């Protein structure tokens, strides 16, 4: 008996190997199947964010019963480990082996930059639902005709935020941002907008990504600044405000979206009370649509949705709307992009449409962290209360597209720190 089992086991291995080679040659028999390849980190340091992302998409799928206007959705999640080369290989696996119609996801900007060429090479749609690297839909958008972004570009919320900072009467601001491309873009956008309405960025500090101890940086923050602008990512978001409070610094703190999004907010304490950030989504957005979304998401996954979840939920909704238009048929990559980029959506985050470089034009919310009750939950919790809405913000803000694209992408040295002391 055991012997037989062993025999059949080895057969299974052989068959498995064959299947590895053969399964691919099987073409899609049913035309009504929509295969979506989802690339997100499922292991490693960013695994929880990846989970938030896929949960958002999955929740929408569950809501509509797993089919978009008659097309049955096959949702295939692959682990990118938050490493660009791995993301590329997984994307190619999805395209070559699973014959997906589109790739969705990616988390870090670097992953976005890695996946975009795959979409061009394989002539497959890539929906960047989270990667926010500016140039994907700016200076390089012509290279990636099959890329459309449903999330945001890094500097998009920073521009109105800079203007808002001026209106608060801040004159001199120091910035402290994680030392990587995303940090440069968020801080750069803020600096540009803040300085074009008369403010001055007097100091820029770049602690390395993953810094735990801000001890060497906090004392160097200029004492005569009116406010601090921070851009943190991951665990840094939690460490920095705590250590800032411990150092007894009471200055107003402004932050890029990821410094205070709902992914990190529940782990924060009262030290962040009153901190202000800007993003295209807040879980505390007081609309019926968002209230329903938050309640449902929280019931299902036990936590308040972050923008990672909302973005992917909305992405699923957008794909669904396109399929409603096409009558449940896959229109082909080019047509899909064309259709999607011309549509207007009533999303959880608010109204969304696309500019001609396929980046969303959407509301940007200025959000202040408050401890309060929301949506009928019994406990006092930290929420990103929306204090001001900038409607229909484009990635070019009010600089004009051609003017904006003439300048280089925001970097460590651009915009130059004219007022640094």
């Amino acid at each position: 008996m055991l012997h037989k089992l062993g025999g059949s086991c080895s057969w299974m291995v052989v068959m498995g190997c064959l299947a590895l080679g053969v399964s691919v040659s099987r073409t899609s028999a049913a035309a009504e199947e929509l295969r979506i390849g989802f690339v997100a980190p499922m292991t490693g340091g960013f695994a929880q964010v990846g989970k938030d992302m896929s949960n958002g998409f999955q929740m929408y799928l569950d809501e509509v019963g797993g089919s978009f206007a008659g097309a049955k959705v096959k949702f295939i999640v692959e682990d990118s480990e938050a490493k660009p080369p791995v993301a590329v290989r997984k994307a190619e696996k999805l395209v070559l082996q699973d014959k997906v119609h589109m790739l969705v996801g990616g988390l870090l900007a670097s992953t976005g930059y890695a996946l975009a060429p795959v979409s061009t090479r394989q002539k497959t749609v890539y929906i960047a639902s989270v990667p926010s690297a500016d140039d994907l839909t700016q200076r390089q958008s012509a290279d990636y005709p099959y890329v459309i972004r449903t999330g945001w570009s890094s500097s998009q919320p920073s521009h109105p935020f800079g203007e808002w900072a001026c209106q608060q009467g801040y004159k001199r601001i120091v910035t402290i941002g994680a030392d990587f491309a995303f940090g440069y873009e968020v801080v750069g956008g803020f600096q540009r907008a803040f300085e074009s309405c008369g403010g001055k960025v007097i100091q820029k500090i770049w602690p390395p990504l993953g810094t735990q101890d801000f001890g060497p940086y906090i004392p160097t923050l200029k004492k005569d600044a009116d406010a601090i602008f921070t851009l943190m990512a991951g665990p840094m978001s939690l460490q920095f405000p705590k250590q800032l409070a411990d150092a007894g610094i009471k200055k107003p703190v402004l932050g890029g979206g990821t410094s205070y999004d709902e992914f990190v907010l529940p782990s924060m304490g009262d030290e962040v009370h009153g901190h202000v950030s800007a993003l295209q989504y807040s879980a505390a957005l007081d609309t019926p649509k968002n209230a329903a979304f938050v309640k449902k998401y929280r019931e299902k996954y036990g936590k308040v949705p972050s923008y990672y979840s909302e973005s992917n939920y909305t992405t699923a909704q957008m794909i669904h709307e396109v399929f409603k238009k096409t009558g449940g048929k896959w229109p082909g990559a080019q047509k899909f992009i064309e259709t999607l980029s011309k549509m207007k959506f009533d999303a959880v985050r608010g109204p969304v449409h696309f500019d001609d470089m396929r980046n969303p034009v959407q509301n940007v919310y200025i959000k202040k962290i408050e401890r309060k009750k929301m949506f009928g939950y019994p406990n006092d919790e930290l929420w990103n209360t929306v204090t001001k809405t900038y409607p229909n913000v484009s990635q070019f803000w009010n600089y004009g597209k051609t003017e904006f694209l003439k300048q280089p992408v925001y970097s460590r040295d651009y915009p130059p720190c004219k007022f640094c002391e």
Partner: protein
Amino acid sequence: MFLTDRGKLWTVFVIVLALAILAPFASAYVILLVTQALILAILAMSLDILLGFTGLPSLGQAAYLGMGAYLTAILATRYDFGLGWSFWVVIVLGILIGAATAALFGLFAIRAAGVSFLMITLALGMCVWGLAYRWNSMTGGDNGINIPARPKFGIQLADGVTYYYLVLFFFVMSLAMLYVLIKSPFGRSLVGIRERELRMRILGYNTWLHKYIAFVIAGGFGGLAGVLWAHLNGIVSPQVVVLATSVDALLMVVLGGPGTLVGGAIGAAVVVFLRDYLSTVVPWWQYVLGGVYVLTILYLPGGLMGIPARIRRWREEQAGPGQEKKR
């Protein structure tokens, strides 16, 4: 061992032939995986020269892969160089830059041995990573560099199968050259250094120079792997040069069997299969990979290549001494 040297050569020859013949029938994704495994095999074999034959456990092999890859990407994007026939020049340059980097690092590293050698190579590898990560204007920092397209010169390397054959060609060439190297008197003296450096020195060998040359050669093959790697992914990011890549290469050699050359290739194949294929099937692939590593180190000190020898020994024990005499 089961096989004589000639027998082993034949086995390798048959496997390579099978790889060449079966390719057009395999799916595009399998081709991609095998291509990847072959490139990593070149890297692992280059490391085996150090680890297996010379007894130098290097934790910086990814540095040479990175140098080759970044060179390729920078030449392609900034100077439009290496996307036609000039690809062959880039191959040579890639080998040279790998070797040159190793020649520089070797000056620091070779004087050490054992754990110190491990640490120095680790530190030097991290230097290259730091360079890749921080030199934004040149390397694109965290975002890395996208290579616009694979080279074409009469043949289109953009085609997965064509590129696979190119990589297979380089793999076979590397294997052959490294094989000749280890069978040469120079290779023998490396093994001598591994076994007992003092004796070699007393015999009049300049052991420092021998180790240094081996280090540089390994760097050169690392650089070659880097050029191929860059065009495989179409993107070069600091992720290529992180410590994990060096550790992977080390584990591939240990897994396959150090001091066997083809062991590195087998290790590379197993790791790629487990990591890239299994990870698409089950979410707990990391446990399998970890388990395989642990079991190999515990029970197969000679790596997977040591299995035939173990089986033979086991059989002899089963058969008993009488039986053996009859044979």
